[in-house]
């Protein structure tokens, strides 16, 4: 199982394109939503997949950055023609991205990675920390049957409940909550400083949700690594299936540099480094050796 040729996913529908920024608007503190036109990627991309984005501004920063699909943008005929990406400014590239105005161009390649598995479930429970909510809007929309991604609809009964447990440092960083609410998602918030929702950790919210009502629940999780590790422990104890979307730094996003590795269990008591960009970024939580 350690043969890299058997990667779960290669960039088998990826294209590289120069794209034009349509808008780039603030959503919360240090957090923006950038929208760009790219029909070829938009019609193929699935929730949980990502794109690599590179500024056309010389060689520093040199490498592109991985950013998850927030949602597709539809034209008047309901055809996907663009992408929305929501990003937090943390460093060199995102800092410059925040200064791009409409009409600027960027180099983008995707769709990349595997995306979420979408088993039928009664309760889709999405657990996000920091900027980890970004892959969940499209996933919720897909589960609720409100949009088709990658050209084919999910043919399953929508979950009875879709919940987002979302934690951030402070209320000012919570981004896109209205987007989830507009879909009919139950939103449960937590902040470290208590400025919004529960004061404490998002894992407190998760425990509450799972308390005695774990059956039929499917958890998906994205956020800082310690939080994902905690969530995978909680779900393991509760015997609830859980997928995590790893945020390993990536240099290429397409499987050729071997820099984005995570320790993935081989099922025989050992582990192997696997490339999160082609084997992931989404993994069954129990497969990750934290």
């Amino acid at each position: 199982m350690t043969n890299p040729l058997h990667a779960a996913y290669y960039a088998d529908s990826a294209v590289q394109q120069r794209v034009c920024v349509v808008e780039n608007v603030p959503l919360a503190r240090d957090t923006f939503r950038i929208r760009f036109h790219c029909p070829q990627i938009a019609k193929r991309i699935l929730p949980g997949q990502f794109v690599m984005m590179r500024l056309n501004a010389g060689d520093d920063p040199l490498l592109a950055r991985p950013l998850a699909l927030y949602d597709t943008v539809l034209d008047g005929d309901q055809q996907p023609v663009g992408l929305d990406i929501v990003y937090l400014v943390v460093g060199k590239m995102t800092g410059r991205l925040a200064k791009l105005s409409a009409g600027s161009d960027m180099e983008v390649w995707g769709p990349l990675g595997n995306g979420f598995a979408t088993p039928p479930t009664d309760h889709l429970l999405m657990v996000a920390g920091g900027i980890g909510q970004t892959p969940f809007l499209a996933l919720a929309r897909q589960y609720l049957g409100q949009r088709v991604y990658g050209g084919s609809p999910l043919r399953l009964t929508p979950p009875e409940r879709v919940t987002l447990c979302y934690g951030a440092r402070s209320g000012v960083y919570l981004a896109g909550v209205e987007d989830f609410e507009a879909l009919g998602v139950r939103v449960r918030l937590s902040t470290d400083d208590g400025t919004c929702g529960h004061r404490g950790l998002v894992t407190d919210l998760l425990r509450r949700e799972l308390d005695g009502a774990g059956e039929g629940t499917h958890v998906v999780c994205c956020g800082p690594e310690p939080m994902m590790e905690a969530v995978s422990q909680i779900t393991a104890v509760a015997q609830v299936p859980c997928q995590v979307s790893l945020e390993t730094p990536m240099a290429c996003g397409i499987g050729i540099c071997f820099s984005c590795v995570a320790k993935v269990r081989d099922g025989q008591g050992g582990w192997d480094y696997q490339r999160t960009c082609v084997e992931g970024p989404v993994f069954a939580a129990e497969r990750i050796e934290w």
Partner: protein
Amino acid sequence: MPEEPTDPCSLEVQLGRLRLANPVLVGSGTFGYAREMEHLVDLGRLGGILPKTVTAEPRIGNAPWRTIETPAGMLNSIGLDNDGIEAFIQHHLPYLSRLAAPVIVSIAGRSRDEFVAMAARLDGLEGVAAIELNISCPNVSGGVDLGTDPRMCEKVVAGCRAACSLPVIAKLTPNVTDIQEIARAATTGGADAISAINTCLGMAVDWRKARPLLGNTLGGLSGPAIKPIALRIVYQIAAAVDTPIIGIGGIANVDDVMEFLVTGATAVQIGTANFYNPTATMTVLDQLPEALSQLGASSIPAIVGTLKT
């Protein structure tokens, strides 16, 4: 007078016993096992494909972080993460051998004997056009010693040359005092061509935590930042030996390719640019004939080493 039908410009190059349709190759370790790229680039158009270096035994590779971006470059310490030569032959070679582009298998041994055994193992296998000896990887001790000691370099090259009928390319490290000495050793050993350069040893530090950023502390610098060093080394090798040179280091566009050819390289490998511009090789191939014609040339050999100093 009717004009002679203009021959379409030929991009063919000869590297010792190895003939390639064009001089644009991809660097080992920067193109995975090629299959990853099949939807993004037309693999058959490449002058040659170098899959990631294989070793005799599987290697798990180094602990993360394995790469760090630096201004106009990146440091890596992947640590030759690979499943070993037998897994390569079983799982990767069948795919690679079906490609229209020649496949040059990059090998790294911990000793001369290990190199020779791997060369012998690859001899005669379908789909292997040549071997490149990675005697220059900074991420595994052993590798670097073979590429920094001229006598060892010669022995490894000569041993591999004797062990197989494939063209043999020696890939050199820039992390030496006298590159000409090593290039002469590779030539004496019988190398069909010399690839230069592998990455430049470097490091990155987080002063607040007083810790190195790479899991392996030291790593290899690549990308546009090292192009001047690579050009200098190609220039020095060309001055020392007649062995054809494959220039590597920071090549990202057709101008970079032309700089290396004029300086003395017969072919080039594109490395880090594949990471930040996956279609870089295709753009270079599209633009190369026009760049040649700007120099009034209609073949690669016509411009190789034409630098006036």
